[in-house]
């Protein structure tokens, strides 16, 4: 209990510090001015979300290989947390896009593939609710998770290859390319902070999943009596 509260406090501090840094330490960007400060949050959340999905993929593989319940629990936990991060990315994106490009949404490569990614993991969680038997649910959703993750680079490749041929309303140099040193430091600090948040949330969600399986076991026993 104590340890959890401490970890929570540290994570909160890190996220707060990252926000402070992106507002007050990072220098003003030339073309977008203050608006560019969304970047530290938006892009770092995207990185953390992708890491969460990678964790999910590894957990899925390990489940298929070892068939241990804990990998299944880690799979759902990281998928849900990853989804939360990608949701943040998909919300902050348009908020940034509107003043920067004049529109909320453009079907450009990054946006579209992130959206497809989001849909894939929604399907993953949906599938889990539709299979009753725990072992089968774990196995089949793990397999679907594996297929989804393999699909991600292909989706990205496809959309980037063809969609960027069409002129986007505003063409923006991809952030991250040639970042000024202070900006770079602030960005990587943000990435670190959001990864800490991600790990914390996965741990919390994992505890919940453990509790859920415990309840399931007890329910089984109660029924047996």
């Amino acid at each position, binding site marked *: 209990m104590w340890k959890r509260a401490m970890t929570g406090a540290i994570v909160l501090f890190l996220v707060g510090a990252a926000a402070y840094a992106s507002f007050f330490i990072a220098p003003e960007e030339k073309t977008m001015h203050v608006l560019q400060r969304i970047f530290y949050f938006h892009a770092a959340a995207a990185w953390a979300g992708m890491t969460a999905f990678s964790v999910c993929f590894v957990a899925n593989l390990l489940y*298929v290989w070892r068939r241990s319940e804990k990998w299944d629990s880690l799979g759902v936990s990281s998928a849900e947390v990853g989804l939360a991060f990608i949701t943040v990315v998909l919300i902050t994106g348009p908020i940034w896009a509107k003043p920067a490009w004049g529109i909320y949404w453009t079907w450009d490569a990054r946006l579209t593939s992130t959206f*497809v990614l989001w*849909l*894939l993991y929604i*399907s993953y969680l*949906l*599938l889990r609710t*539709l*299979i*009753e038997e725990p072992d*089968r649910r774990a*196995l*089949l959703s793990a*397999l*679907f998770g*594996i*297929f*989804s993750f*393999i*699909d991600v680079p*292909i*989706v990205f*490749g*496809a*959309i980037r*290859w*063809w*969609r960027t041929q069409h002129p986007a309303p505003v063409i923006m140099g991809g952030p991250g390319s040639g970042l000024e040193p202070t900006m770079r430091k602030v960005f990587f600090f943000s990435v670190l902070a959001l990864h800490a948040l991600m790990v914390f949330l996965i741990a919390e969600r994992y505890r919940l999943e453990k509790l859920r399986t415990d309840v399931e076991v007890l329910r089984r026993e109660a029924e047996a009596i």
Partner: protein
Amino acid sequence: MSLLSNTGALLGKELRTEFRSRELLTTTIVFILIVIVLFSFTFDPTSDESRRFAPGLLWLAFLFASSLMLQPCFLREQHNDTLSALRLSVSDPFAIFLAKLAANTLFLLLTELLLLPLFAVMYNVPVVPVLHWLVLVFFLASFGISIAGTSLSAISAQARMRELLLPLLMLPLLTPILVASTEVTKSLFDRAPFVQWKGIGFLAVFDVVFLTALWLFGEYLLEE
């Protein structure tokens, strides 16, 4: 070797049952027909517009139709628990998938080729000069759709709401196929048609990647 002979025997069974009733083929063809007609009401199919929209429309229709067509793929095997009989009999469960996806590819390809002339007439796009390229794209895309669809129908057959679930699992996964085949078809329907090799290569890569994944993980999809 037994993989090939098993696949052959199973493919024979798939084809025999389908061509005996032709249930899948007729329903899919009628479905696409309806979609093609309905689409024409959503925009005016003049020649120039058609060139722009027709490829996307065509592939959307095929994709939706395939999510219907692949539905019974594993559901059918549950009826008399023939899936268990197959699992008991074959030495490699991959044969079950290979046979099904070969059959599905064939059915999809057949549907597409049957509807192509009609489509060409109704939407006024010239298909004859680029027919051989179209067939290649149709094949690669149908194969990809079948690989993903067959594996996912093995999943959805074991869940609740199976009829609704398959499209939900399958369509997002198939975005790359939709994008690539639409783009390649678009360049083939162009005023000055050309072959987009990178698109064709892309479809091939998708097929290879997912076939490998199915080969590696297929047997677990059927586990009990």
